[in-house]
């Protein structure tokens, strides 16, 4: 039952992921990506026993990051016509590159002896629970946690200075003269 659930979820996830890059309308892409995230979260919750990560995945990715994407796309009026497709050659090269990467990865991990990799019996406590994760995070991973707050500071400063308006003429290169905004 779980195995078939996994195959179902996996199939749906991959399908939506493909649709993300295939959809013409960016709004559709965003929605497909949200669905992909739901698929991944379903994996966390239903199969991998990691409910906290699953829910946080939805809150952070679907509830915050993708909302921001949608915001930007909606406000910028990016309709389907906005993007000229790359030529077919590009498509083929891209697909070929991705496909070969996949083949290489799959080939490398196919031969791994999984018994040595996993196979540890569960120790009883649910490691995906918020309590356990919180304990580990705030005892062993204090330093990365604080460093992450520096990262947030950088992001705050960066976002504020880049997104704010500035009343200057548009230029191309530091030396050349202003060009008119069209």
């Amino acid at each position, binding site marked *: 039952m779980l195995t078939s659930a996994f195959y179902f979820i996996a199939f749906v996830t991959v399908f939506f992921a493909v649709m993300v890059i295939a959809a013409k309308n960016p709004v559709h892409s965003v929605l497909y990506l949200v669905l992909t995230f739901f698929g991944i979260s379903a994996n966390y919750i239903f199969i991998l026993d990691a*409910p906290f990560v699953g829910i946080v995945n939805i809150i952070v990715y679907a509830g915050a990051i993708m909302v921001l994407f949608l915001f930007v796309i909606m406000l910028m009026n990016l309709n389907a016509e906005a993007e000229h497709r790359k030529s077919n050659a590009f498509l083929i090269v891209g697909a070929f590159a991705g496909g070969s990467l996949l083949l290489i990865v799959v080939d490398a991990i196919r031969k791994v002896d999984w018994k040595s990799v996993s196979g540890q019996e569960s120790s009883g406590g649910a490691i995906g629970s918020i309590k356990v994760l919180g304990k580990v995070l705030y005892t062993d991973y204090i330093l990365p946690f604080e460093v992450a707050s520096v990262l947030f500071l950088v992001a705050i400063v960066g976002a504020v200075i880049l997104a704010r308006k500035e009343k200057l003429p548009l230029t191309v290169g530091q030396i050349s003269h202003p060009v008119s905004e069209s």
Partner: protein
Amino acid sequence: MLLEIKTSATSTAVDYFPIVIQFVFAAGFVATTMFVTHILGPHLKTKKKLKAFESGIKSVGNARQPFAIKYFLTAILFVLFDVEVIFLYPWAVNFLDLGMGGIITMGLFMVLLLIGFFYIIKSGALDWE
């Protein structure tokens, strides 16, 4: 066992399964209702009615026009703070167990967060005129 008093730890898959049922139920309800209204309601197509409504005046231009930057900035800052708030949950749950160490850790984090917040307020990024 679903909906029985839990005696031992069970895996989360079973715990969460009713959510799927609920979803199927809700989605089914929505789809059915939509379909039924579609069947029942009258279908009169008139051109004027299908135009975008702009207070009775003829609609002008594309609705999807670029917007004030404040909205973007609000959304961007929301994303950052949302993640910071998420980090607080596992801490709050273990608040008593972590003791002083936890408080210092989070205190430092909060100080940096507040510095960022102070910066945002002071730089006027959130001023709605």
